[in-house]
């Protein structure tokens, strides 16, 4: 192989490497940024906890939001409550959670709540 051929092959490899780098960088920059969705979901979960403490959550109300809510009293004897009830079977992918002390007529309790997209 002559010197010129060796140089050309080396340049070709360098071009392939650079091209691959550009493709990878371009693909990476096309990924969707998450934005503020998680913040919004966390705020909405806290909204639902406020509504639960002031008026009580019902199935119809939560289902119209397009989200699932799971409410569980910490240290309580009862089972977790799912709103709407069909969410008991749905996969809680990307769930945001919070704990809150909620006081109702019957007394106060510490609740763990989770929210995910239906």
């Amino acid at each position, binding site marked *: 192989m*002559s*010197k*010129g051929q060796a*140089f*050309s092959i080396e*340049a*070709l490899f*360098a*071009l392939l490497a*650079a*091209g691959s780098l*550009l*493709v990878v*960088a*371009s693909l990476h*920059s*096309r990924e*969707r*940024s998450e*934005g*503020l969705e998680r*913040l*919004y979901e966390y*705020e*909405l979960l806290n*909204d*639902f906890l*406020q*509504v639960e403490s*002031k*008026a009580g*959550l*019902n199935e*119809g*109300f939560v289902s*119209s*939001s397009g989200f699932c809510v799971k409410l569980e009293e910490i240290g309580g004897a009862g089972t977790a409550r799912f709103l709407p009830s069909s969410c008991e079977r749905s996969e809680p992918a990307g769930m945001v959670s919070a704990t809150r002390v909620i006081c109702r007529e019957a007394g106060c309790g510490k609740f763990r709540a989770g929210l995910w997209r239906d």
Partner: protein
Amino acid sequence: MAFPKRFRCEKGQAFSIDAAVAAVLVLTLVVVGWRGISVAAGDASFANSRVSLQAKALALADFLVKQGAVYSSDGAYGKAAYSHEIDSERFSSLDSGELARVVGARSACVELLRAGEAASCSGGACVKRAAVLHESGEACFVEVCVE
């Protein structure tokens, strides 16, 4: 049978051919790289403006459910705002133009929705926050859209 002579280029010829090939490769790199960078910059700019609009919608909705549209009363230490308890009268008197100006958006649309009601507001970014109506204790949504 005479075998063909192996091509042996002179030093100057080899360098010229190599430089020509390298120039073509570099030019290709520059063109492809320039286009890739332009696309990436465009995508980044679009993502940034989308997040910025989302942030405005979130900030406005947060203000409304915690302060701007809630029931308030005079207390021992001044005015007390009842977070997440919407005062319908106060909500109706909101000026969406002024709200848009405060968050730095071109326009804003806000509405109160009961469960099951469809939203009529639309815009670049919309958020829906849950609250209760102070008068009736009924759960409701505050829909905010900004453009």
